């Protein structure tokens, strides 16, 4: 047993608070925020709902089957309005040495419960998180009332079935900060699904974060599905640090929301590590979606791939910013990025900004981006088979997204395709 962690979540909170106080809100003069102008965003109007009690935990058994009827989960937990209202599998998870901490108290005690390497990894991750906060919105997240989970998997343990975390955020003019920390020790493996939903009627600001540390030889598959109501603002901060010979695969879906700004970063810190970032985004009506992915190569013989596909319709605007950064030491890096965008309506706007920053010559690195409309030939073919125009369009778009979703496995398909089909049907109506 190790003692309390020096840098624990509370420290992170306090120091993030100091950073928050010292910074200004980001402006369009900063490249990453150039296309999302927060100048008139009513930050002060959103408040944490004081009536929520963040520390009560686990009232009921929740298996996750209402969301995924056909799946078995190693552990599952559901949060409503920031409070954990149900969970299952914690004990059986514990038998393998893995821990899913769901309450603030549990997280605080983690320092005592985690074995040495795990505690060190957690501490290191918190320090990295703190060190990387580079804008006020991110500082705001970490200084806030985080609710969420810490998932810890000890060395060599392979969790056979996925872990599910479901966040249903609620409230009017509410500010919520769901967060997940994932620590995988060497050789560990798990698939984690994080689902974030808000309703149509709720007007809220969700400032979320997911941070994963994947140690040597470990494998993490992360599915993040955001299915948001049209009055929701969402800022998402996601990072995975991948060590020697480890592998990180992420599939993220950004569906709905009125303003979404998200950054997913995979840092290939150890030689031989791999990261695969896949994502879909769908903006309709007047939505503004600004999605960023970053592949950072810091060590030799690392591999990364990104595939992001978006659809923009109505008067919405989508922005995709993708960066591949290859350091001097990252020789023999193999990196690729693809972004495809479908524009459904005149006046919908799609910006695509894939960038490369390469500092060594022994690399294989490329990126590609396409923007255009639905393949007319495919459309006419389906219509000639009896589909209505709308149905044909929906079918093609579903296939377009499924191409990415399948990289997240059957659960990704199951979780995201339903939501997409619903939204497409809503358009045709």
């Amino acid at each position, binding site marked *: 047993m190790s003692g309390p962690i020096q840098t624990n979540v509370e420290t992170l909170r306090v120091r993030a608070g100091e950073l928050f106080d010292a910074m200004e809100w980001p402006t369009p*003069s900063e*490249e990453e925020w150039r296309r999302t102008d927060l100048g008139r965003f009513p930050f002060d109007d959103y408040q944490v709902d004081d009536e929520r009690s963040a520390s009560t935990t686990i009232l009921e058994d929740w298996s996750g089957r209402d969301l995924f009827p056909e799946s078995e989960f190693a552990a599952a937990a559901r949060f409503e309005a920031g409070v954990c209202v149900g969970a299952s599998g914690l004990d059986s998870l514990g038998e393998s040495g893995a821990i899913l901490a769901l309450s603030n108290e549990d997280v605080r005690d983690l320092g005592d419960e985690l074995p040495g390497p795990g505690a060190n990894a957690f501490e290191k991750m918190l320090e990295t998180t703190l060190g990387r906060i580079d804008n006020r919105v991110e500082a705001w997240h970490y200084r806030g009332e985080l609710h969420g989970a810490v998932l810890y998997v000890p060395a060599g343990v392979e969790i056979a079935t996925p872990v599910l975390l479901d966040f249903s955020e609620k409230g009017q003019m509410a500010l919520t900060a769901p967060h997940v920390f994932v620590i995988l020790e060497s050789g560990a493996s798990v698939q984690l699904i994080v689902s974030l939903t808000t309703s149509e009627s709720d007007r809220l600001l969700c400032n979320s974060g997911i941070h994963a540390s994947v140690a040597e030889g470990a494998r993490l598959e992360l599915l993040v599905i955001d299915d948001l109501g049209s009055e929701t603002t969402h800022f998402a901060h996601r990072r995975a640090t991948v060590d020697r010979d480890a592998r990180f695969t992420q599939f993220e879906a950004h569906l709905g929301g009125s303003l979404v700004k998200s950054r997913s970063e995979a840092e290939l810190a150890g030689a031989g590590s791999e990261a695969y970032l896949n994502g879909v985004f769908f903006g309709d009506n007047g939505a503004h979606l600004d999605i960023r992915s970053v592949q950072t190569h810091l060590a030799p013989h690392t591999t990364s791939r990104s595939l992001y596909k978006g659809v923009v319709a109505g008067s919405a605007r989508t922005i995709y910013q993708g960066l591949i950064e290859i350091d*001097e030491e990252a*020789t023999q890096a193999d990196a690729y990025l693809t972004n495809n*965008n479908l*524009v*459904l*309506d*005149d*006046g*919908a*706007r*799609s*910006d*695509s*900004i*894939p*960038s*490369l*920053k*390469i*500092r*060594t*010559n*022994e*690399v*294989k*690195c*490329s*990126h*590609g*981006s*396409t*923007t*255009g*409309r639905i393949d007319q030939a495919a459309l006419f073919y389906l219509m000639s088979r009896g589909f209505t125009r709308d149905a044909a369009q929906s079918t093609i778009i579903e296939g377009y997204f499924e191409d990415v979703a399948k990289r997240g496995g059957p659960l990704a398909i199951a979780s995201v395709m339903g939501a997409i089909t619903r939204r497409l049907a809503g358009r045709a109506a």
Partner: protein
Amino acid sequence: MSTQTPSIEIEDYKHGFSDPDRSVFKTRKGLDEDVVRAISDLKGEPEWMKTFRLRALKTFYKKSMPNWGADLSNVNFDDIYYYAKPEGEQQRNWDDVPDDIKKTFDRIGVPEAERKFLAGVGAQYDSEVVYHNIRADLEQQGVIFCDPETAVREHPDLVREYFGTVIPFGDNKLAALNSAVWSGGSFVYVPKGVEVDIPLQAYFRINLESFGQFERTLIIADEGSFVHYIEGCTAPVYATDSLHSAVVEIIAKPGARVRYSTIQNWSGDIYNLVTKRAIAYEDATVEWVDGNIGSKRTMKYPSIYLMGEGAHGEVLSIAFSGKGQEQDTGGKVVHLADNTTSVITSKSISKGGGIASYRGLVKVEKGVRNVKSRVVCDALILDDQSQSNTYPYMEIDSDDVSVEHEARVSQISEDQLFYLMSRGMSEEEASAMIVNGFLDPLVKQLPMEYAVELNRLIELEMEGSVG
């Protein structure tokens, strides 16, 4: 009321200072209203151009430097001569010319007569003879090709209609500077239906102003005409001034085609910050061929606004960035009309610690139908000290488009190298051949003598790059 004076040569500046009718103005560094007025007076400009310069100056003071792109922290606006240089400033001895420059002249075959001028050893290169014959031909066709000062005096209506409409002086700080202190450059007008069959080169009219720091070029190609304009040369050009801020405006009227080729090989600590923009009307085509070899810092993004149906724009960009250099280049195309197409091809090489960055924009406005655009960026990094960056921007507001972008960064292929070396080449020779092959699709677009010179220049640059 301004007096009509002939084209100002360096000697005339001296006379101007001692002329009691003009205010005595000593040459000095730095920029203010008096300097701008003096420039305008010395050129004998009409009031409207002086007014233009002064407004530009006011705008220059208000604007800030770009906070992106190459590192411009050492540019000092107060440390520059904005028009006349003190006597002898531009002169130096042939013996003082650096060996590597002399070597380059040898290798790329610069004629003896030109070497001294290019190396800053002579003030003038008299190419009047060559130029004279070409000029007669052009005059017959109704083509106007002269320096902008002459154009302001002799073709004021034409100049006034277009000058500053493609690049307004408020566009950016460097354009404002150029608009206030511009000197030299070219003015070209091609009448309807005329196809100029020889490339026009400022090189023909070499004097200090052809390689001036603040060149201003305006090209108007009337309906259905064609012209190919070439700026610069592959030979390293010596200049004392550290800041080169040129502006090039091109108007291609319906059915016209304009190709503008640049090879820039500024030697020394030159900051090469250029604004180049063209408008292409119905069924017109504008092609920028942009080669950046020299200078310490270059920021240049030739642009095309496709404003008429059926217009086509193309940017071919080559950048070579060696030790201590930063080439920040690319191209921009804005689609504002239906059935327009664009292609941007960029090839860059970084070696010896050089940084090469591609920065480009493809923008399609709302309501524009049937647009196709393709951007391909290829970057070679030759060693682990160098850097290559790619920053493409696609901003699409229409659903009737097909926009593609591709970028690749790689090193010289081991297999190719091995193969060529097994044929008896040294590693340097093989690398040079591969690099020339890499650039070939773009180099092919240049007139042959440039292509040949460029290839030789690359071979020279590649020497000593291995090991």
